[in-house]
């Protein structure tokens, strides 16, 4: 059935900060337990809007972050603090790389 894709162009959704999910919707979307998502929030890996967990609003970026967390834990044996650190550093490295590319282009 996937062969149809060869002729039809599929469109996706751009992942940005605009689409909002509740905790329940996020869990359904990513097939992970709510307790685990709450741990990710405690660790600062996910930063939903809203004070209480019943008011939390997650973005599509969170869906992606969750799948990265799962892979990093499974493949590298990291604990959540390690994952949080890795994600922060990765973001910083990516930013620096782009600035470096821009500098190289100028010179």
């Amino acid at each position, binding site marked *: 059935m996937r062969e149809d894709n060869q002729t039809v162009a599929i469109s996706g959704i*751009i992942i940005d900060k605009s689409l909002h999910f509740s905790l329940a919707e996020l869990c359904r979307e990513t097939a992970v337990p709510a307790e685990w998502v709450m741990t990710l929030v405690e660790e600062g890996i996910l930063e939903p809007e809203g004070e209480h967990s019943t008011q939390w609003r997650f973005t599509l970026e969170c869906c992606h972050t969750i799948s990265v967390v799962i892979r*990093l834990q499974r493949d590298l044996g990291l604990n959540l603090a390690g994952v949080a650190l890795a994600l922060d550093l990765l973001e910083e490295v990516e930013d620096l790389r782009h600035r470096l590319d821009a500098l190289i*282009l100028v010179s």
Partner: protein
Amino acid sequence: MEYKDYYKIVGVKRDATQDEIKRAYRKLARKYHPDISKEANAEERFKEAGEAYEVLKDPEKRAAYDQLGANWKTGQEFRPPPNWDTGFEFSGGGFTAGESGGFSDFFESLFGQTGGRFTQRRTSTMQMRGEDHTAKVLINLEDAYHGATQTLSLRVPQMDEAGHVSTREHRLNVKIPKGIKQGQRIRLAGQGGPGSGNAPAGDLYLKVEFKTHPYYRVEGENVYLDLPVAPWEIVLGATLQVPTPEGAVNLKIPPASKQGQKLRLKGRGIPAKEKGDLFVILNIALPPADSEKATSFYKNMAKELAFNPRAHLGV
């Protein structure tokens, strides 16, 4: 089928201890993890290392593999000798289809037979959502202005009715939406790994990167262009033809502009939800003194202009 030297892949000697193997593998995994590494063949190397570790970490699988002998070379044509596994009782640590997806034919022929003693597939009875996949797509800056359709070729694991896992090429035509920014991801629901049982497939996350453009630079939704200008254009002012990703426009340079000055073309950046701007940075280009006439112009300037560009350095 080609022989694979698992020791060489992990980078240890054949007599390495289990601890040494684990350390070497962990190091490789960190280096080539697709979520971390920027190296072009990271995913391939990561899978290769994972496959090697799958065998070497398990003393029984390792012993069986060792029994094939040390004289094989990577890439050498290989057939498992008949009854090569006699005398081994594999406990069958098992691996899930999600993890083993993409293991080589070599691995499959030794350890992966369905119903064999090596693995117990748990997948048939489990309801498990398919794995999310990630891929990168390189686009031209212009594609972000107009939108585009890209054909992607992904290697995806698939399982046949007998539970045998192999990879195949999955070609996808994907719409790149107008207004996409460097580094943004597109989520294609249900285009990831297949779920087991009746569980839904995972998603495919496409990371969009712009190809390096010969003269535009991109930061978020804003685009930057270094525009070479002649000294008289920047001093006297001028109306210049300036390229933009949407076509050339006329840009007015005010008189007495300065080197490095930024001129903003509002709304001519990437047409994201919040429209970006195009910034033109003035960059003085010196006319070459490649003729007598040009040289005498420079000599005249030296004579006529009291100009000390180093005045602010106190000399």
